[in-house]
């Protein structure tokens, strides 16, 4: 590469990091760094043309319609209160297992991920229900919050994962194939998590250890005892009543976004079964529709979102037209805001990626690594470690937008299967969601748990990193785990 071009690349990367560190939106940092690089390479006029066209050309792509469809489905499912039913059923089904409540949390996280595709939303929604339930049953508060943060990472693999869609778009892989590929690894990860919960539970990992934790459990026990009627029927009085608040102007004024949550502990209702059935229906529409070839991924997302609208209307019909209207309005603005956030990142990422492409850096990196004759497995492992480290510093979409344009030509040049690598990359990126210093799931879990800080959740989540590494090792050793479902359905 030309030394001038190398200097420009270094300058752009320094600017990117500097603007991110200045607490500016990351999409803007990507656009600034990419734009500056293009000005230095080709002058301001061409840069203006690229920036002027990028907003429309990078958004107006039919393949991207799937993103707001999945986001809409998730927003509607959240507002319909399906998480409460899912958790109630999971809790009932796992009550015979040691650490059953922890296992139920993992199951509910996996199930809810399957209709939201968002890890943060899963932590917030399931966490509001399960963390206090676990704490009252004698789990350490930080370990309970850690379980929710961990369980929500399943959303990165279990369809409909929005990260998977973005990876597919960045690498030119089939969206439907990648989404299907995440299914078995997602379920496998869930099984590993559940086994780990039982293992750690038996070893007393979740028991209160400090004086403060024991005092907290005692206070819950006292409150619970006073609330339980003689016939030990329902425990309603001590059930958590949580509301999620949205941020108003500049994050200052909050307002209720969802209905309050009240969980029955000792029996499950018909509504719980119906709610869980709705989750299953949405999941089947997305996965079944793509698997059978009835729908493309975009169509599956749209049909599932339409069904989610009907579910919301059914669920809120008793609460009246006003409550339904507010839930729909909130779903719409949540959908539009989340979609805009994702597309803004795609816009900034596209400018940065275009700049990198113009420099020829991705090809140069790919050629030099391929010429070095390094074993592909070693290169894959190095790239996964890199994704894990970056995942601890930046959000997942930003990482993909910055790193994948550089990594993918290398993998493609070495003949690595894109579907398999996509699953591995997603799994590595998911670890970043729970890794310090900025594991977003941990921060969301800390936000919903009144009694623990993010630092203490990090302490509790540490042993589960071993589980994550074991899962990645299994996925590396047996690529068919990732590829056999899409191969079975769509052909090799």
């Amino acid at each position, binding site marked *: 590469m030309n030394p001038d071009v190398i200097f420009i690349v270094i300058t752009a990367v320094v600017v990117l990091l500097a603007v991110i*560190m*200045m*607490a500016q939106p990351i999409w803007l940092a990507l656009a600034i760094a990419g734009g500056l690089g293009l000005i230095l390479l080709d002058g301001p006029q061409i840069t203006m043309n690229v920036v002027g066209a990028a907003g429309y050309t990078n958004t107006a792509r039919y393949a991207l319609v799937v993103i707001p469809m999945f986001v809409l489905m998730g927003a509607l499912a959240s507002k319909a209160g399906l998480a409460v039913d899912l958790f109630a059923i999971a809790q009932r089904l796992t009550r015979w297992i040691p650490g059953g409540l922890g296992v139920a949390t993992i199951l509910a996280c996996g199930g809810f991920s399957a209709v939201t595709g968002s890890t943060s939303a899963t932590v917030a929604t399931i966490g509001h229900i399960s963390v206090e339930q676990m704490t009252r049953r004698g789990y350490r508060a930080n370990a309970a919050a850690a379980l929710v943060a961990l369980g929500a990472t399943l959303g990165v693999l279990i369809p409909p994962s929005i990260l998977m869609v973005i990876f597919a778009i960045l690498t030119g892989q089939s969206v439907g194939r990648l989404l299907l590929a995440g299914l078995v690894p997602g379920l496998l990860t869930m099984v590993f998590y559940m086994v780990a919960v039982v293992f750690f539970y038996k070893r007393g990992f979740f028991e209160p250890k400090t004086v403060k934790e024991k005092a907290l459990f005692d206070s819950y026990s006292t409150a619970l005892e006073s609330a339980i009627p003689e016939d030990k029927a329902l425990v309603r009085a001590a059930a958590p009543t949580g509301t999620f608040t949205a941020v108003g102007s500049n994050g200052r004024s909050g307002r209720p976004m969802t209905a309050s949550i009240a969980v029955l502990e000792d029996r499950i209702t018909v509504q719980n079964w119906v709610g869980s059935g709705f989750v299953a229906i949405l999941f089947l529409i997305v996965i079944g529709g793509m698997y059978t070839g009835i729908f493309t991924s975009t169509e599956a997302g749209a049909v599932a979102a339409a069904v989610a609208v009907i579910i919301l209307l059914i669920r809120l019909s008793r609460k009246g037209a006003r409550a339904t209207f507010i839930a729909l309005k909130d779903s719409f603005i949540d959908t539009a805001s989340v979609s805009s956030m994702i597309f803004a990142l795609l816009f900034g990422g596209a400018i940065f990626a275009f700049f990198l492409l113009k420099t020829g850096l991705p090809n140069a990196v790919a050629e030099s690594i391929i010429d070095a004759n390094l074993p592909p497995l070693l290169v894959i492992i190095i790239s996964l470690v890199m994704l894990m480290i970056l995942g601890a510093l930046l959000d997942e979409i930003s990482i993909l937008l910055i790193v994948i344009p550089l990594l993918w030509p290398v993998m493609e040049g070495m003949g690595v299967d894109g579907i398999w690598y996509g699953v591995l990359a997603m799994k590595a990126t998911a670890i970043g969601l729970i890794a310090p210093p900025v594991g977003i799931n941990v921060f*969301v879990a800390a936000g919903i748990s009144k009694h623990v800080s*993010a630092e203490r959740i990090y302490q509790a989540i540490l042993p589960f990193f071993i589980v994550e590494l074991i899962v990645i090792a299994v996925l590396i050793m047996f690529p068919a785990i990732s590829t056999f479902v899409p191969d079975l359905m769509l052909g090799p």
Partner: protein
Amino acid sequence: MWWFSRWITLPLGVAGGIVVFALMVLTVTDVVMRKAAGQGIPGVIEYSEVLLVVGVFFAIAAAQVRGFHVATTGFVSNLPRTARRIVELIGAVLGVLVVATMAYVAVVTAWTSFENGEYRMGIAHVLVWPARAAVAVGFVLYLVEYIHGAVLHFQRPEDEPDTELELAERGVLL
């Protein structure tokens, strides 16, 4: 809440959501027609693309107001107060300049598209300027909200806009 956000930015965000809803209806109708009658809506891809752009850019400023755009304060939060404010000021000035440039370019591009009657090639000849206009509107509103947020931040640092992590710490659903 600032009147501009309350009456312009956030309602436009809701409108963006309604456009996404319309996109869903269009896609589902196309699927149903194709399965039932063997033929879908002509030009559904072209219309979908235009709707997608409108939906996304109508809400880009609302996402800023609601704190959805990802940023990290990991570095600046560890700086001394004065150094933090200087670094943030440099970032904000840079951000305003770049977003203003983007807004200007988007407005010019939208106007040119309107004047030329630009349309999307495909089965249906769908006019593109409404989408380009939505991009321009989105960036202009984003610029206004960005400047407002920055000014507010430097006037009253305690009211600074929240980053994603700060929202998460407060238990806000992201």
